[in-house]
């Protein structure tokens, strides 16, 4: 393979890795939005919190794999508590989605401050687990194993998610509730429990992404901000509530980022937003969405 081909292949895999990571974050966001009509501003903060929990579990156990197991579960539990004891009350307040939006904004601010009090403002470092350190040769291209692992991990989560969504009764209920939660409850399903579980599941996926990203990034209080914004773009482009749309949009935006930096670096920071504006101009519901 010529060095130039290698470079393009590398950019392609970079885009895939970042795109899949973005999908992990965006899928939770889009599921929550589709079902509950809530734009969860705290989603990026859950991502960030999970990376911090990863630092702590890693410090206590020395095992990255235990961190990958425990930190997202911790975040999922927090998500469930936030839904059960805060969001549900905000919804009952009758103030509509404004109350929920403000509540999740509040949760994200509180989390950012809580993280500073617990772990300090200093950037923390997580190492790539030794089993995944180093490079692998892909047709002459030396590529970091850990970035491939991010792709594989995301695919595994995607497969699990598809299994639950398309092969179980709970999955059918979730898919139905994404389009019409009121009708689902009129058919005898306690949607409040489903909401809680989905909020937990969405937070868990943000948590998995947080732990997956920790070894390539510095863990600091602002960690979730940019990825939260990127995930929002993915959800808008893919269509609110559409998982398939989120997957395609995340992969497309990942590649757009990598090849944008390769060919038009000066414009790359705005490419994503320009594309979002373009999609909204021609299809206000997003590529695969039904709602505006």
């Amino acid at each position, binding site marked *: 393979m010529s060095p130039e081909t290698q470079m393009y292949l590398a950019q392609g895999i970079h885009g895939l890795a970042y795109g899949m990571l973005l999908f992990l974050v965006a899928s939770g966001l889009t599921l929550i939005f589709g079902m509950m009509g809530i734009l969860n501003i705290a989603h990026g903060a859950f991502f960030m919190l999970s990376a911090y929990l990863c630092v702590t579990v890693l410090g206590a156990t020395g095992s990255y794999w235990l961190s990958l197991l425990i930190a997202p579960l911790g975040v999922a539990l927090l998500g469930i508590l936030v839904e059960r004891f805060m969001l549900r009350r905000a919804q009952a307040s009758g103030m509509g989605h404004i109350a929920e939006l403000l509540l999740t904004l509040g949760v994200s601010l509180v989390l950012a401050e809580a993280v500073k009090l617990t772990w300090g403002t200093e950037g923390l470092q997580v190492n790539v687990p030794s089993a995944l350190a180093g490079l692998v040769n892909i047709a002459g291209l030396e590529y970091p194993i850990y970035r491939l692992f991010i792709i594989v991990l995301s695919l595994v989560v995607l497969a699990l998610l598809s299994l639950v969504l398309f092969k179980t*009764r709970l999955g*059918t*209920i979730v*898919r*139905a509730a*994404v*389009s*019409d939660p*009121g*009708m*689902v*409850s*009129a*058919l*005898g*399903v*306690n*949607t*409040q429990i489903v909401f809680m579980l989905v909020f937990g599941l969405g937070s868990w996926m943000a948590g998995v992404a947080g732990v997956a990203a920790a070894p390539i990034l510095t863990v600091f209080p602002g960690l979730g901000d940019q990825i939260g914004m990127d995930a929002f773009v993915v959800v808008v482009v893919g269509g609110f509530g559409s998982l398939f749309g989120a997957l395609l949009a995340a992969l497309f935006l990942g590649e757009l980022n990598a090849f944008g930096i390769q060919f038009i670096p000066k414009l790359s920071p705005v490419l994503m937003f320009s594309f979002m504006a373009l999609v909204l101009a021609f299809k206000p519901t997003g590529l695969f969405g*039904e709602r505006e």
Partner: protein
Amino acid sequence: MLFRATNLNTYYGLIHALQKISLNVDQGEIVCLLGRNGMGKSTTLKSVMGLVPPQSGAIEFQGRSIFRALPHKVARAGVGLVPQERRIFPTLTVEENLLMGVKAGCQPPKDLEPWTLKRVYKHFNSLERRSRNKGSQLSGGEQQMLCMGRALMGNPLLLLVDEPSEGLAPLLVKEVRDVLLQINQAGVSILLVEHNLKVAMSLAHRCYLLGKGFVAFEGTMAELQARPDVMAKYLEVS
């Protein structure tokens, strides 16, 4: 008495949509809600279902209160809803839509034959062919059939049916009418909102005529027909 609502008051914000509405449905009855657009017919069904919780009043179903109960509790008590907009799940297949109607963990009523996929397909022939299609791919008539089938899968004792013939071709209207009659003969009581007076006359045993949020007339269909003045005042001239 299977179902009794007493003095229901429901608000949309500041709008007093239902004003002391009282009505009842007996076992085996088809009761029709009539009235012009915006008089509160759909709101009555939504209030019963718990989708738009009433402010005050009382609702009893089989002697137990379901007043301000959450929709899933009302459903699990034995009430089924066929809403006006049909509200088919567009991304689910026809079969998945039907299975969404199953109330997991609920025993079907003893004296009624339980509804299964097979039995629904027998009643609604067109659905079986379309079982693997997405809800969004169905025609209006098919959606109406699916919507009724979905509600039946939950083995309701009382079915709330909102404007089933709306937007359907005359042939389909007749089919819907026939199916409702069959369902009723199978032992399901029906509270029906129907715009088409002919359909209502041919189906219902009794009716309630709604004015702006209140009950203007109640009685049998024959009694209604004897009051052209009432009909002229509260029904659309057609």
